[in-house]
């Protein structure tokens, strides 16, 4: 409609708009050209000559091209509307106050960074109950921490302070920032964008941590693959994580890692890049070169913020239904920041993790180090001698370790032959720590506070004893909740139980992951209606609030309706002179429903019998109902990378 008249009254058709629209638009004032300065100089001939350039009125255009004035008016205003691009006003928002528009730097609105579908899906998984989020923010637990900000802070405040030590090689925080910037720039150039996943399968080498920080600085997400995993497991994890790139060794012993990844690349459409550490492998990029190649620091389009997901870790299900745990900076870094003073870790500390960085427990040591600007001493692969030597030579002040590590070193006398005097703190975690193991370790590391920590991939450090606690507390419990964390022991109906009663350990707090990625069944099973996470661990909390982990719910044996936790039986079996390691799992029974089967790794040359073991247990006051009814002798116990027994893989030979 123009001037109150309809298209029909004006006699305009879409064909006319198409035919004359551009001409009318250009003849109008929308585009203006002036040659010379004819009005000021009153050069009337020149003014007349360039009227069309300066812009004609609708009536003048109508006369010029043979339309009615109303037709021109209508068509012009239609064109002005159709061609009008909205959103330009935002260009102003960054200008002024000393800043001027630079066409070469301006990114048009439509070209602005856009999250990929997989990145958005990951963000969608970061779902927290509003009242919990508000609480964590109000309490100051969730702040604006990101690994990039922490690195920047330390690189600025203490650029020469050591950040990573590997043997005699030391990387300062300033140097670390440069290397991280190089790799981040390279990853960005490869198209890795915020929210996208980069997977890593590396041992605990400095490059792991450099890559971790580089991925984080892009706002991307790191997903770890444990070193023992091979093609079948890796394919599942890469596919579920929707990884854009994978960083691995060129080759490990008997494992052509890079070739395996390249083969998977052809199966996984989202996997674009294989980046290898070590000897060159055709078709891969060299991690070493990407880190070493100095480049100008690039401005990150969408720098990470604390609510972003930055870790995607897998807890189980490496062949089907993976349980992928997305974690935000809020979750992880609040836990580390609040935890550092509890562990009495400061910038003066040198932290060694015997646990792999592919596991959250190993990463926790790095998070705590980054929280305070401490130094991380790396041990690429755990072996008992290497750990003992690294402690002696590297002189860490804090050690993150697992009961299996400690047991191996104590059992072989390594802790007698090496100097542990640098240690002021040793955190033991990963599985239940037998009290005598903690006591034995404390006896060897005389000036060291041996503490226990309980956590999961879903929580990081949820419970721990503190360095000031009596040894007996640390030897017999996993301690009290970390700051910002609540725990309760609940029955099968999620009702809290009294102190001293065994039940399931449930967790809530600022450290808690939001839920498994793309796994609604696992989420439904893992959270209570009021947001508590069902850990699956059995525990007892004492009056002082210290929590003792007593087993796994899944490990409970239901023998004819009588349920019992076999942990005490296992601990006793471990002490039998013919037993190196033992585990008890339920096996189906047509009469009782379930009965107990003991899997035993014998000591060299030993051949324990079921009868021998049962007699031994009976001598130690184990009830008859808890005695194993079957024995399986195995050569090696299936273990997780953090040295936990994988009971799910223990299947009786004839079962």
């Amino acid at each position, binding site marked *: 409609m123009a*001037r109150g008249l309809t298209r029909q009254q004006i006699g305009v058709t879409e064909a006319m708009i198409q035919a004359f629209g551009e001409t009318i*638009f250009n003849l109008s*004032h*929308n*585009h*203006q*050209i*002036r*040659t*010379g*300065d004819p*009005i*000021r*100089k*009153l050069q*009337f001939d020149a*003014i007349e000559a360039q*009227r069309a350039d300066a*812009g*004609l*009125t*609708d*009536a*003048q255009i109508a006369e010029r091209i043979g339309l009615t004035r109303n037709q021109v*008016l209508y068509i*012009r*205003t239609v064109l*002005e*509307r159709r*061609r*009008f*691009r*909205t*959103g*330009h*006003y*935002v*260009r*102003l*928002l960054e*200008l*002024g*106050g*000393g800043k*001027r*528009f*630079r*066409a070469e730097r*301006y990114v048009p609105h439509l070209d602005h960074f856009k999250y990929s579908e997989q990145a958005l899906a990951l963000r969608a998984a970061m779902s927290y109950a509003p009242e919990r989020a508000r609480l964590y923010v109000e309490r100051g637990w969730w702040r604006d921490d990101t690994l990039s900000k922490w690195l920047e802070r330390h690189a600025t405040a203490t650029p020469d302070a050591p950040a990573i030590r590997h043997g005699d090689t030391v990387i300062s925080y300033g140097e670390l920032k440069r290397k991280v910037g190089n790799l981040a720039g390279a990853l960005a150039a490869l198209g890795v964008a915020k929210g996208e996943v980069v997977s890593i399968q590396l041992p605990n080498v400095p490059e792991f941590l450099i890559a971790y920080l580089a991925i984080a600085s892009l706002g991307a997400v790191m997903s770890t693959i444990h070193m023992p995993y091979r093609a079948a497991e890796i394919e599942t994890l890469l596919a579920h994580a929707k990884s854009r790139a994978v960083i691995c060794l060129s080759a490990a012993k008997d494992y052509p890692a890079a070739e395996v990844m390249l083969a998977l690349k052809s199966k996984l459409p989202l996997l674009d890049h294989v980046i290898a550490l070590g000897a060159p492998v055709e078709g891969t990029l060299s991690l070493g070169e990407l880190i070493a190649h100095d480049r100008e620091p690039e401005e990150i389009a969408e720098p990470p913020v604390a609510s972003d997901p930055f870790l995607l870790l897998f807890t189980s299900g490496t062949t089907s239904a993976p349980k992928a745990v997305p974690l935000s900076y809020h979750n992880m870094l609040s836990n580390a920041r609040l935890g550092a003073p509890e562990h009495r870790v400061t910038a003066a500390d040198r932290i060694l993790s015997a646990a792999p960085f592919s596991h959250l427990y190993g990463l926790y040591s790095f998070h705590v180090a980054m929280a305070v600007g401490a130094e991380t001493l790396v041990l690429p692969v755990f072996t008992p001698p290497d750990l003992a030597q690294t402690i002696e030579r590297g002189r860490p002040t804090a050690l993150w370790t697992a009961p299996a590590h400690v047991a191996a070193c104590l059992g072989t006398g390594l802790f007698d032959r090496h100097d542990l005097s640098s240690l002021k703190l040793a955190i033991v975690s990963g599985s239940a720590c037998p009290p005598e193991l903690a006591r034995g370790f404390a006896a060897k590391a005389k000036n060291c506070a041996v503490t226990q920590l309980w956590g999961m991939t879903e929580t990081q450090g949820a419970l721990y004893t503190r360095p000031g606690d009596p040894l007996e507390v640390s030897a017999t419990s996993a301690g009290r909740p970390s700051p910002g964390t609540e725990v309760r022991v609940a029955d099968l109906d999620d009702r809290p139980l009294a102190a001293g009663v065994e039940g399931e350990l449930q967790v809530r707090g600022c450290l808690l992951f939001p839920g498994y990625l793309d796994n609604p069944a696992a989420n439904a099973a893992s959270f209570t209606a009021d947001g508590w996470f069902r850990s699956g661990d059995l525990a007892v909390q004492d009056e002082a609030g210290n929590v003792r982990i007593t087993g796994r719910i899944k490990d409970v044996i239901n023998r004819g309706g009588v349920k019992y936790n076999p942990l005490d039986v296992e601990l006793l079996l471990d002490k039998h002179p013919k037993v190196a390691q033992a585990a008890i799992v339920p096996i189906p029974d047509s009469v009782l429903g379930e009965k107990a089967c003991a899997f035993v790794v014998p000591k060299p040359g030993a051949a324990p019998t079921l009868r021998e073991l049962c007699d031994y247990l009976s001598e130690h006051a184990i009830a008859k109902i808890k005695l194993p009814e079957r024995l399986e002798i195995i050569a090696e116990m299936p273990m997780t990378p953090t040295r936990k027994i994988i009971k799910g893989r223990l299947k009786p030979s004839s079962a």
Partner: protein
Amino acid sequence: MATAKRDIDPVEAKKQILDYCRRKGALAAGVADLAAIERIAPPGHRPTDIMPRVKSVIALGVGGQTQGAWTVPAKAMAYFGSTETRAYKIAYGLSFFIEGKYGIRSIYCPPDMDPDAGPRVPLQSLKLHAELAGIGARSLAGDILLHPDYGYMYFASVFTELELEPDKPLERNPCPAPSCVNMYRSIGRTPCMKFCPVQCLDGEIDEDGNQKVMRYDMAACAEMSQQYETVPSAIANAIAAETTQDREDALFDPDNKMLWYKMSVGSGGLLAQCFECMRACPIATKAPLADPILRYEAARKKAG
């Protein structure tokens, strides 16, 4: 009402009229040559189209920005545009002043759009009036008028049946400034061209340092400054949206909510122009009398 008083001295009347303008806050004022305007303005936009017996067109300009204004963020400066209302007030008062003092019909020239031609076409060109009255010359910045002493001003006009001696256009066009010519020689662009957020300005400077060609993409400029076009776009997008989420975004995203806000409170902020070309212009910001602080210093010196 008397249409004329035979005893009016046109020279004295002009002096009194221009004095009135300055007294009321105009930096510059002058009388445009009506015949020239009638010849240059297109039909329908000539002074006689709205006042058939007009004899004179008086143009006046008020100062554009304070020195402080040039330093603020652009989003804040966009609200400084209401300076033009000062010019309108003076013109409005002047029309009463002429009728009251001389008994001759006058009008405050409506500064707004021609409802017969859509929102981008003014009833009258205040720019043409001011240029012919000698209080501004067309610049490379989309023909924005600049004055060598007062820099960048807002203009208003008064039409009157009182016949006054017209002034002449400026002898010299201050645009381009010498520094702009140097920049153009170096990179082929002047500051206003380089720093325009929508790159709507282009042009050429001749060998003598004068304007050769001015090119202005007013449509692009309007995309930045004429936000009324965004209003129907937002509604059209909402109607066309396929999902509730898209519909909500079309109506309630922060930019669009600002539009609804401006409409509901009648705020003129963020409309008309963005000032970035003028922020980069040495004449607009540094002309000797464009700077209120310099004017203050001059007045202080004069007072001894």
